[in-house]
């Protein structure tokens, strides 16, 4: 059933003013995970970074895995949202804000992890490009300095990309509330009125941001991949790493987006807005990325195997047949063998089906990051330096708590911001917009905001 503008506003503002018991249970769960991480990090600060399982030669492990994983997850939002905006995909409207929020929070978590990793987070400002007492600047030749610039730009861009289309919705909340809440939302809305000048400027700004943010998103994960590819370590020094990481990031990002949407749908009662069609469309994207991931993984491994270089083959066999084989094959199952049939068969590409496939992909992609980092470091070029790595409870707790932190940020955000853009849904209701964007043959059965057939025909004057 088609909703009116008034119903849309009522339904989407409802979660901001009413909180269910399930929501508080989810918040309590996420907070407990975060607190566990805070305790583990406090212990690490007190005892030193030796409480991690890092050693020579495995200087990177869980922390960098988490870093790459969360930066990858961030690709869900802004990149997908920007592409859908530029292609004017009408089904995007209920999806974009859920996606953009994922980006901002996962980049934030990703940016925090290197601070934990350096062991002395209070010295993190050394990465900021300013001359210190000895007039030495950061080394701009280092991929770690590139990371700083890329992640800062991406965080700024994705926060702006999230905030701009939220301004009119902040104004809607302001107008629907009173007291202190009205004042706070008034500030957040910056005094937005909805004049035509403001709408025009906002739409142009969103268009520019969508154009700019796509190359930024691609560059961020490419640069993260160069943290590895610029290093002479077996299986790292490869030109395929840039696109491989970007594809993997989009893959894991879409999976995270589907999971977030499924969660919000239940917790905030958004069943009428986040419909099966959205999960089906995202499921198709996830299927495409799963196939692409398999292609890249096969190409990367085949090249190493065919080259038959002893240092690379040591890593190759470690991950496929020896120590890391269980993790490797779980990864293949989670990223390819389980999700592909679920997503390829239309009958299985339901909300539950896509959520199950997404769960396996998230697990599989975390393992993929781990298998890129650790086996290569354990088996560098010179065999005398080979070593082993075992994670400690501190690292495992920090990893788990990063998921709790993400969940908590997302839940809190959903209480202060409408998780579906109200004004964009209203635009989808305009008959003029439908006629302009939909194929002529379908005008007799007009399509609504999410691409679902509406019950009645258009008014005669519009249909003509």
């Amino acid at each position, binding site marked *: 059933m088609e909703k*009116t*503008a*008034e119903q849309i*506003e009522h339904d989407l503002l409802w979660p901001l003013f009413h909180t269910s018991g399930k929501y508080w249970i989810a918040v309590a769960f996420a907070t407990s995970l975060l607190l566990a991480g805070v305790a583990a990090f406090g212990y690490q600060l007190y005892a030193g970074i030796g409480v991690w399982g890092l050693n020579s030669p495995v200087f990177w492990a869980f922390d960098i895995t988490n870093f790459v994983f969360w930066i990858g997850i961030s690709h869900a939002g802004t990149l997908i949202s920007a592409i859908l905006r530029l292609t004017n995909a009408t089904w995007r409207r209920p999806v974009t804000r859920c996606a953009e929020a994922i980006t901002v929070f996962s980049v934030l978590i990703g940016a925090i992890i290197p601070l934990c990793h350096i062991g002395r987070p209070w010295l993190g400002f050394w990465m900021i*490009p300013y*001359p210190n007492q000895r*007039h*030495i*600047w950061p080394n*701009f*030749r280092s991929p770690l*300095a*590139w990371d700083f*610039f*890329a992640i*800062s*730009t991406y965080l*700024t*861009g994705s926060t*702006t990309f999230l905030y*701009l289309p939220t*301004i*009119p919705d902040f104004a*809607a909340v302001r*107008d629907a509330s009173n007291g202190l809440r009205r004042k706070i939302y*008034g*500030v957040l809305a*910056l*005094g*937005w*009125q*909805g*004049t*035509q*000048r*403001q*709408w*025009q*400027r*906002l*739409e*142009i*700004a969103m268009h*520019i*941001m969508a154009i*700019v*943010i796509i*190359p*930024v998103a691609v*560059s961020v994960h490419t*640069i993260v991949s160069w943290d590895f590819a610029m290093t002479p370590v077996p299986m790292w020094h490869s030109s395929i790493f840039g696109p491989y990481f970007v594809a993997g990031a989009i893959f894991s990002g879409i999976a995270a987006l589907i999971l977030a949407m499924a969660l919000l749908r239940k917790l905030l009662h958004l069943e009428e807005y986040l419909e099966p069609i959205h999960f089906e469309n995202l499921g198709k994207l996830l299927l495409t990325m799963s196939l692409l991931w398999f292609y890249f993984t096969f190409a990367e491994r085949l090249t190493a195997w065919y080259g038959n270089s002893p240092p690379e083959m040591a890593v190759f066999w470690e991950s496929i047949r020896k120590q890391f084989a269980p993790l490797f094959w779980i990864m293949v199952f989670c990223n390819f063998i389980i999700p592909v049939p679920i997503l390829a068969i239309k009958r299985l590409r339901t909300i539950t089906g896509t959520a199950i496939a997404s769960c396996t992909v998230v697990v599989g992609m975390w393992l993929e990051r781990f298998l890129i980092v650790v086996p290569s470091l354990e088996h560098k070029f010179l065999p005398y330096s080979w070593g082993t790595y075992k994670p400690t409870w501190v690292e495992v707790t920090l990893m788990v708590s990063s998921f709790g932190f993400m969940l908590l940020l997302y839940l809190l955000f959903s209480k202060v911001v409408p998780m579906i853009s109200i*004004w*964009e849904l*209203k*635009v989808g*209701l*305009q008959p*003029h*917009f439908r006629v*302009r964007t939909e194929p002529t043959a379908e005008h007799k059965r007009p399509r609504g905001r999410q691409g679902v057939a509406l019950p009645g025909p258009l008014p005669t004057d519009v249909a003509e």
Partner: protein
Amino acid sequence: MKTLYALYAEPDAAQRAVDTLRAASSELKFDPKQIVVVSGEPHEGYEFADEHATGSPYRWAVLGAAVGGTCGFLLTTLSQKSYPILTGGMSLTPAWTNGIIVYEMIMLGAILTTLVVLLVGARLPNFKGVITDPEISTGKILVGVVDPPENLQPELESRLRQAGASAVKQSGI
């Protein structure tokens, strides 16, 4: 800030109201810039909306990108030259790696400029007086005149009604 306004359910009616007011502006001697149209969503394809269309934010974004890129170039090049480490014959200011910083700064420049241009162009933040009506959230479009001369109010009311408004309201009294 006082506003005399009416609400219209359809953008066509809002367009008629704007046209009527604009035609009346020369006759009644008020500035057409005092006409305001407020809605809960953008309306494309209508003159009252499209008259504000402009390409200047794109040009500003390109300029911002150029400024960002220049800053990136100067940051990397000047800092590397200020501390000339021994590079074994390799370039002291390598274009490949510096290019990455320059690229990110180009993008950052474009993003920040777009944000500033939006705020300036949309006249935000503006906490002085918000013209709004609860019915805008139901999809109606507000068309009105800001600070109308007292003696013209009855005439403006009748013009707004002619365009299809059932009621004419005032805000900010």
